[in-house]
């Protein structure tokens, strides 16, 4: 069976782009990824498009892939829309990996796009699909993760200051990332002093929304040999599971533990082999819990891990070197592929001032949506090495 290689990545800056269409955002990312891979539009054999809110906001529940690819002259190939909440981009990437791995195609394109600035309910948390019933009782994503935070903090003694340090660290990373929406530094005091959303999560403890697109070109061994492997990054594992646990009860995400374990098993490596990670830092507390669930630090020591700077650039295992969702914003469908963009950039040694020295193996983690008391999806990818 062929290995699968990331031959190229591309993305738009993330921000609020009221005057740019989803077609334009997507096309910009796709062209950047194709150019990065030195692959022509006509050489793409299959494409997977991640998007989550284009139906509600843009009247395009389906057909976003065709819309974007029509802009760049890619027609007459299998195009599949992939919706999986915040993990839509990660899931589109996974489908493209599987398409190449299966041997059905030699070149597959994964793209993700979202334009959330079109939504009406500004100043309120983004709602989540399928949570209409819980919404009658005041459910919002920050409310849910506040409940998880309460349990985690009571179990571990983690303090609001430790949580805030995630936002401070990620914003510090973002100052070196031209694609990030917010690049000004913030302090622990600013994070804790910003408007309360759902206790203990303040405004600066929650990732902002945003508009943007990201794309990746995946190729087989045969195409990799033709392109030359010097800048190619191998996909070591793709893992995706639906939720089954009780994070509010447990103070952690059992689904993430199992998703990550499956990824490490596929790759034949362990968490100590990971040099750099992009995790789903939708909320400060979740990044800390993800350290533990992904095995990057011992259970119960996530807060200490960020307090000691071990997940900062220059630390033991830098996390969210792009600035994370916290600084980039979270255009749902684009997020997972933007994480791949950052890891590929790091593993190629092309991350400039935010480069993790000697990074060989990288991890991406994205969770998405909600179902029956848990997140709906958890996606983990291992790249490089």
């Amino acid at each position: 069976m062929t290995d699968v290689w990331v031959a190229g990545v591309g993305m738009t800056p993330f921000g609020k782009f009221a005057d740019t269409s989803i077609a334009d955002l997507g096309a910009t990312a796709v062209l950047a990824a194709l150019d990065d891979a030195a692959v022509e539009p006509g050489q793409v054999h299959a494409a997977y498009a991640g998007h989550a809110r284009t139906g509600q906001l843009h009247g395009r529940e389906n057909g976003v892939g065709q819309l974007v690819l029509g802009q760049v002259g890619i027609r007459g190939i299998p195009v599949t829309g992939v919706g999986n909440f915040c993990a839509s981009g990660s899931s589109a990437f996974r489908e493209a990996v599987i398409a190449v791995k299966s041997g059905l195609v030699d070149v597959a394109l994964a793209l993700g796009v979202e334009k959330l600035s079109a939504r009406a309910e500004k100043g309120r948390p983004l709602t989540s699909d399928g949570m209409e019933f819980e919404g009658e009782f005041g459910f919002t994503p920050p409310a849910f993760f506040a409940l998880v935070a309460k349990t985690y903090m009571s179990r571990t003694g983690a303090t609001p200051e430790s949580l805030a340090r995630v936002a401070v660290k990620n914003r510090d990373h973002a100052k070196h990332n031209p694609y990030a929406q917010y690049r000004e530094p913030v302090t622990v005091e600013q994070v804790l002093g910003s408007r309360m959303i759902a206790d203990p999560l303040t405004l600066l403890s929650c990732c902002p929304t945003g508009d943007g697109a990201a794309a990746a070109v995946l190729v087989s061994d045969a195409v990799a040999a033709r392109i030359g492997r010097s800048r190619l990054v191998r996909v070591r594992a793709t893992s995706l599971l639906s939720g089954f646990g009780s994070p509010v009860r447990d103070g952690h995400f059992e689904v993430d533990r199992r998703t990550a374990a499956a990824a490490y098993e596929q790759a034949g490596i362990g968490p100590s082999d990971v040099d750099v990670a992009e995790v789903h830092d939708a909320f400060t507390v979740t990044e800390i819990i993800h350290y533990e669930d992904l095995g990057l630090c011992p259970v119960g020591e996530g807060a200490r891990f960020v307090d000691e700077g071990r997940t900062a650039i220059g630390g033991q295992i830098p996390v969210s070197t792009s600035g994370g969702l916290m600084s980039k914003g979270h255009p749902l469908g684009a997020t997972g592929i933007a994480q791949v963009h950052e890891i590929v950039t790091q593993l190629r040694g092309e991350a400039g001032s935010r480069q993790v020295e000697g990074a060989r193996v990288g991890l991406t983690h994205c969770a998405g949506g909600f179902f029956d008391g848990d997140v709906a999806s958890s996606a983990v990818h291992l790249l490089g090495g």
Partner: protein
Amino acid sequence: MDLRPFFQVDDGRVRLLGTRCASCGTAAFPTIRVCPACGGRDHLPAGLPARGRVVSSARVSTPPAGFGEPVTVAVVTLDDGPSLFALLSADPAEPAQLAAGTPVEAVPGPVRGGAAGFVFRTAREDRAAA
């Protein structure tokens, strides 16, 4: 969203309309088809008493549209087993937040937009005994 398919009020007491396994008694809310405990296919309609304990609660300063004031929400595990996302009573006589483990019960009360639904409050002795 119309909450009527999800609950009933009998004699002032809220019952949640879930299912219960005919084979092993495992309860579910909302309804399901196959028992997660034994695989049985007979999960039959059951009115579950809306009594349980707080797993975690949090004050939400920025609630979704349809709520004028901050609200307190929780995850509650029912005595029958299932857990649900719950709105806590805004009654000023109720504590602002409820510690994990606090016994609670649902009473009819307004939800989003003032619509008829149910809210949880600290359990009363007489009801706990009933």
